[in-house]
Structure formats: C-alpha cells, structure tokens
C-alpha cells in the first residue's frame, strides 16, 4: 500500500544532478540505481512466486449475516483467499477482501492503529483487535466472527449499545467540589497518582473484555470489566477527594458490581491495551471492604 516503487523520472533527474556532484555522491547514486534494479528484480520474482504458490495467500473464513438479504438471513461462512504481504494484519486482509471480492462485506474500522477501538472481533476463537493482529501469528484458515455475546447487526458488526450503557452507568466523568482558585490554576496531581491511574485511562472501548467475560454473558446487568475499569480511573484519582471516592465505591458495590467478578482473568487476557482489568477489579473490592470497615 505504501511502498513506492522508485519513480523513473525521479531517478533521471537525480542522475543528471549526479554528473556534477563529487565522486562519493556518484558512487552513492550508482549504488542507489543498483539497489533499485535489485529491488525491482526481487519484486518481480516475488510476484511470480506469489502467482505460482498457493502458500502466498491466506485463507479467511468470514462470518456473514444480513437480516434483509436473501441467502444471508441464515448465518454462513464465506471463504476468501487473500494475497499475503509481510506485516499484513487481519484488518488489511478484510479490507482487501471487501475492496477486491465483495463490497458488501461489512465491519467497523477506522484508525488502523489500535486507538479507535472499532475493530474488535472474534478471530480464531479469541477476542482480538484486527488492526494489531498479524496474519502470520494465526493458524489457517483464519476464522473471523463478530464479538460473541452481542447481537449481530450484520456480518462482523455487533450492537454496542449495551456496552455503552454499562460504560455510562458508572458516572464516567471527573467530579470534584474542590477546584483551585484563580482562572489559570491547575489541580496538583502527584506523578505517583498519575502513574496509578495511567493504565486504566488507556481503555479504547473496544468491548473485547466484556465479550470474553462469562459473568457478563450470564448477567446482563453486570457492569463488566470496562465500566468497572472506567470507575477505577476516577476512584483512584486523588484529585476527586475522599467523599467522591466513597460515592463511587457505593456504585461499584451494587448487586451487579465488583463482587460479581470471579477473577477468571479472561478480560485481562484479551485486552489489546494490556490493562490489568482483573487486578483493578480486585483492588476496588479491597477498597470497598476497607471503607466499609471504616464506617462500622
């Protein structure tokens, strides 16, 4: 996609400059031309090999479903054979399949760099972010399905509403009654405290954790790892103050809150941002116990 074949006119103009340049420059230009020729040769050989060898393609089995299109109302798997290049991700392969073979193949994606959180899917039996999953790390055929435990809208697109509702159920915004005086005065926060909440702020709302959680699958009201982690981010932030911390722990201690977690670590295992979700939930349980003791 991005590798530009050396441009012919470019080479020519550089070459004419080289005539007046010092000898070292000439040698470099010579080397450059040589390398370009070699690269072109390699490319041609590679292409020829790719054309010959079946092994240069990856076999994808992709889940398909559309509630209104004949033949897709019953879920099925479609096979795609995608030419492989080094560094190709699952997202690259899906985009290739869509742009080349079937423009109705539908999936969410945007940033391609693991920050927008759109493309979490169930790849070879595990929740993964497609844009940061290398094809070369996967067994063939690569089976791509929508996130489990969520309603499928179409193909690989799931309904995220329930996930968003849970995220928004924990008062997911900073609250304090104690802002510093003076228009341009910031609140102070220690480096240690910032470090403590850092990992929890990395969440990209991809939903992989929620989809992997057995408890969330069985209890629709369970807040789930992502929402609890969001609450952790504020509960542990020293800028909010003790009263607010107490208030947050009350939210988290509700029937479908932290105590539901059975520390199976599945959320932690699938988190593409390496957030220690289970540890955060455990820590909140301890905080809740501590604060309950305090009030006895």
């Amino acid at each position: 996609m991005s590798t530009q074949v050396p441009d012919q006119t470019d080479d020519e103009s550089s070459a004419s400059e080289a005539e007046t340049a010092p000898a070292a420059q000439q040698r470099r230009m010579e080397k450059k031309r040589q390398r370009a020729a070699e690269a072109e040769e390699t490319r041609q050989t590679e292409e020829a090999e790719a054309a010959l060898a079946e092994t240069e393609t990856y076999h994808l089995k992709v889940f398909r479903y559309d509630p209104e299109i004949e033949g897709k109302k019953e879920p099925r798997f479609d096979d795609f054979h995608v030419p492989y290049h080094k560094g190709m991700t699952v997202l690259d392969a899906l985009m290739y399949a869509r742009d080349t073979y079937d423009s109705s193949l539908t999936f969410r994606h945007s940033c391609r760099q693991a920050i927008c959180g759109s493309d979490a899917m169930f790849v070879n039996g595990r929740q993964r972010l497609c844009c940061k999953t290398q094809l070369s790390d996967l067994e063939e055929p690569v089976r791509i399905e929508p996130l489990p435990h969520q309603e499928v809208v179409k193909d690989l697109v799931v309904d995220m509403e329930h996930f968003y509702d849970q995220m928004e159920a924990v008062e997911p915004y900073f609250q304090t009654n104690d802002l510093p005086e003076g228009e341009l005065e910031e609140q102070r926060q220690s480096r240690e405290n910032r470090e403590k909440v850092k990992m929890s702020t990395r969440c990209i709302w991809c939903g992989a954790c929620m989809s992997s959680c057995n408890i969330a699958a069985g209890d629709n009201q369970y807040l789930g790892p992502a929402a609890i982690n969001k609450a952790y981010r504020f509960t542990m932030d020293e800028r909010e103050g003790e009263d607010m911390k107490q208030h947050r722990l009350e939210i988290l201690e509700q029937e479908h809150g932290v105590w539901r977690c059975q520390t199976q670590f599945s959320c932690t295992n699938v988190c593409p941002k390496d957030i220690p979700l289970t540890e955060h939930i455990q820590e909140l349980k301890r905080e809740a116990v501590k604060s309950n003791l305090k009030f006895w």
Partner: protein
Amino acid sequence: MYEHDVIVVGAGGAGLRAAIAAQEEGADVAIVSKLHPVRSHTGAAEGGINAALREGDSWQDHAYDTMKGSDYLGDAPAIETLAQDSPEEVIQLEHWGMAFSREEDGRVSQRPFGGLSFPRTTYAGAETGHQLLHTMYEQLVKRGIEVYDEWYVLDLAVSDEDAPEDRSCHGVVGYDIQSGNIEGFRARDGVILATGGPGQVYDHTTNAVSNTGDGVAMAYRAGVPMEDMEFIQFHPTTLPSTGVLISEGVRGEGGILYNGEGERFMFEYGYASNDGELASRDVVARAELSEVNAGRGIEDEYVHLDMRHLGEERIIDRLENILHLAEDFEGVDALEEPMPVKPGQHYAMGGIETDENGETCVAGLYAAGECACASVHGSNRLGGNALPELIVFGARAGSHAAGRDLGEAEIPTGKRGEWEAGDVETPVEPGAVEPEVEADTSGDAVADGGSGLDPDGFVERAAERATERVEALLANEDGRNHAEIRADVQQSMTENVNVFREKAGLEQALRDIRAAREAYRDVGVADQSRTFNTDLLQTIETRNIIDLAEAITLGALVRKEFRGAHWRKEHQERDDENWLKHTLLSWNDGSPELWFKPVLLEGEDKRYEPKIRSY
C-alpha cells in the same frame, strides 16, 4: 424531522468542545456523527497541546512562533485568538480531569516541540489526543448532550440565493447507518461542521479510514469557499509500511534523525543548522526526502529515528505509546534499534473558509477543527497547534452559534472583503462532469433558483434530494466499484501532489482526477441492504475525496512560489510580492472559480513583518 437549536456534525475534539460550549450558552444541542464519539481520529493525536502557561512564556511568543511557522500565511486575528485562548482551554481540560503528564510539583508537564521558542507543549504521554477525546466525551455524558452516533450526514440544507454570502444554513440531512433511514435535522440557530481532515485523499497517510473530508466537500458544494487547500502537511516521522504516526514528541524529548550513512543530516547537511530535528515539520520532511533522493536513504525509502539514548525510564515515562506503535506496526523494538520513518500525509492546513468565530460566509454555518481554515496555520502547522485549535475554535463556534456575542470578526469571509480573481491553465476542465448523476442532488444550492421555501422547506428539500441520490446509487447495482476509483485518486495524489511538486505532475493529477470523475458517473453500490451499508457510505465518501483532491491540486498548480509545505520545482522562492494571499476555490455550481484574498498580518498591537524563515 429532528429539531435542535444547534447541530454539530462530527464528534472529535472540535465537535465535542463545540457542543459543550453551545449547551453552556443555553442551546438545545445535538451531535450527528458517522462514528461513535470515542472512535474519532482526535484520539490518535500523540504529541500535545501548545499553551503559554508558564512564567517566561507568553501568548505573544506563541502567536509569533505560529505566524513564523505558517510562513506568514496565517491570519493574525486567528493566530492571536488561538494563542490567547489556549491556556484557559487547557486548564479547563485539567479541571475536567484529563490525565496530563505531571512534574514533581504536581503541575502539568510541558515539553519542547518543533518551531517553538519555549517548551510549551502540554501533553499526556504520547497519547494526548486519546486522553483529550475521552475527557471531553465524559463531559458530554455528564451533561446529557444528545448524540446521533453512526448517523452519516449526507448534505447540508442551505438556501439558494445567487451569492453564497446571501445564503443561510437551516440544517442537515442524516442517514442512519444502522437502519438506512434518511431524516432531516433542522437547526434553529446553526450547524457546526467538525468533520476533520481529508487524509484519505492520499494513500500514505497517518489519518483514519474515516477521514474523507465530508464536511469540507459538503460546504464547498453548498457555495462556501475552500481556502488554502494546496497546503498539506507531510509529517516527517511516519512508519513506512502503514503510515502510522510516530510523535514529534520523540524529537522533542531528544530523538535524533540519521541517514543511511549514520550522519545526523539535519545539521551535517545544513537543513536546519540551529534547531536540527526540531525545525518545523515541512523543513524536516523535505530534508528526509532530499537525503533519500541523494542516495543516502535506507532501502531508498526512509531514514532512522533513534531514541535509544534517552534511556528506558524516560521513554516509558513520556513516550511509552511509541514503543507499542513501533512494535505492533513495524515490528521494531525502539528500545533496541532505531525506528524507520518517512514523511506521510498528516494534516490539511486549508479547509472551509471561516472567520475567527468559526462562522462561514453562509449565515448559520460554522466550521471548526481540521476541516476549517481561519487561518491559524497558514502554509505550515506547528506540532502541538492542532489540539488547541480544536478546543479554542470548537468552543468559539459553539458559543457563537448558540447566540453569544464574541464581537465582530476581523476576518472577512466570502467576497465581502478585498479579493481578486485568479486564473490557472489546466490540461482538463475541472469541476462537475456533465451530465452528472448527482448534479441535482449533491447540494447545488441554487439548482432551481429562488424557491421561496421556509427553513423547514429547505431541510425537507435537501432530504428529498439526498434520498434520490441514495436510491440512484443503490439502483445502479452493477455499476463501478468505488474502491478502484478511490485507489486511483489516492495513488495519483501520493505520486504527483506530494512533498515535492512540479507542474507536469500536478497536471497529471488533474487528468487522473478528471478520469475518476468520469468513472464515478457510473459508480454503483452492489450491497442492496439497508442495514449498515458501508458500500454505500464509502461510495459517497469517494465523491468527497475526488472534490478535495481536485481542490488541493488546483491550489498547488496556481501557487507559483515555495512557501511552507508547498514546494514547487519551478518556483524555488517565497514570493511575498505576489503571493502573500490566500487561495480560495468556490464550487460555483460545478465550474470551480479560483480567487484570492490578502493575508491579515495586522495583530492586536503589532504587525507581523514577513522575515526569512530559518530554524
């Protein structure tokens, strides 16, 4: 029909900030966005937010650096507004709980960035945009602001007077991606476009797949001029295989660029003898490609960015995200080896022409963020100046649309101020191809002359036209696939309208764009489903990409000088005599019209005299 006081299109940094500001002003505001807010590309910003917060720094210095960085093509009223409002906006973010990196004394950290005379870039690791986006979305949830997420805006509802300056905007037409329903959205007080950049015009870009310049294209076809589109920023440090961004923060913290011979070329070849790696982005990007073209690149493609000497502790503390990006997208362990980097499309300095309150020449239509051009960045944006632009001008557009008096704007919009006609010779006719499948429906506001419609009527009419367009695209089931057309445009733009530009290449790009327009006449949508039809959406986005590619190329062809990010082989000098002016392009019902307006160098209490720009 839905109805609100203010409608914001797009939910990145500028859109969220605009919505919050409008609500604080008492407006009933709603956001319509093709993505859920947290998916917006603001989240990918890494480096930081420039704000003069500390003793020894001042908004005047920030303004001066920005004007110099713009190569004297920014407008002083916009630049000074940015520099004045940024500190307050940054502290506001801190008060909303944003997780900034901190100093020992607990205050927010700042670091050096390219082209700055003071280390004024406030940051949160190398994930500042992510922290900013989520902090603002949290505020949206707190305030209960309504979001129509995964609704794609197909068009604006603009009245149809002859002169764009006499028109007014009454709402938008939305397409519910989940259901395929089309609805009008009436905006009683204003529509704010915050739709981001046009990175997908190029194939090697740091931008998201969603960055297709929709808002700019819609406004353009409704009569609002596009300003300074030729100025595209190529970021000097993107990963060669994917275009993923490696933050300028790496160089800010002391990262060094080496060529294939291990030379620190920024100094050794005199590209920037004072500031070296921390010269302005345009300077560094050209230096890298010059090295590669002189045969001193690595694999004839890229150079090395080395940060190993900073030490693991400092890297993890301030640049941890970079380690993940280099590992995941280039397979490089940046603690052990240098990272390969090359220039990639990153940012559009130009966009929808606005004043410093975010308002366009069409009454009730605003734009803020990367889609807008006030102009803050002129011909080159400084690192760390995009995020403050989002929050400063997002807030201003939001509160102004909701009725707050921000004083009369000094920047004239449309042909209200001084202007001169422009002309450029092109190898093919730019603009609409006749008969265009969409000519009646794509937002040509003057299609049927004075209609005497009321505001609801304009929204209804726009919705009807958008419906016709969607039906026409779906009916052409066996038409051309948009993906090919898009790829052709992207490749031509990367080849011909890149860092180094020459006349023949620009002309070739115009021919390719014309060919894409011809091909687009027969574009169709194979997916016949109304449910989550991304085939349809991408087909519509592709049309926007074509319009923007043409505007960028026309601007590049007409501007016969070298200024900021715009380098021309045939014109190697900045020409203040003839080119101290903005390029504007009006759609003019399908026959694009080029014109110019002067740059405003007169600041609040001084004039910014153009000087030779050296780093």
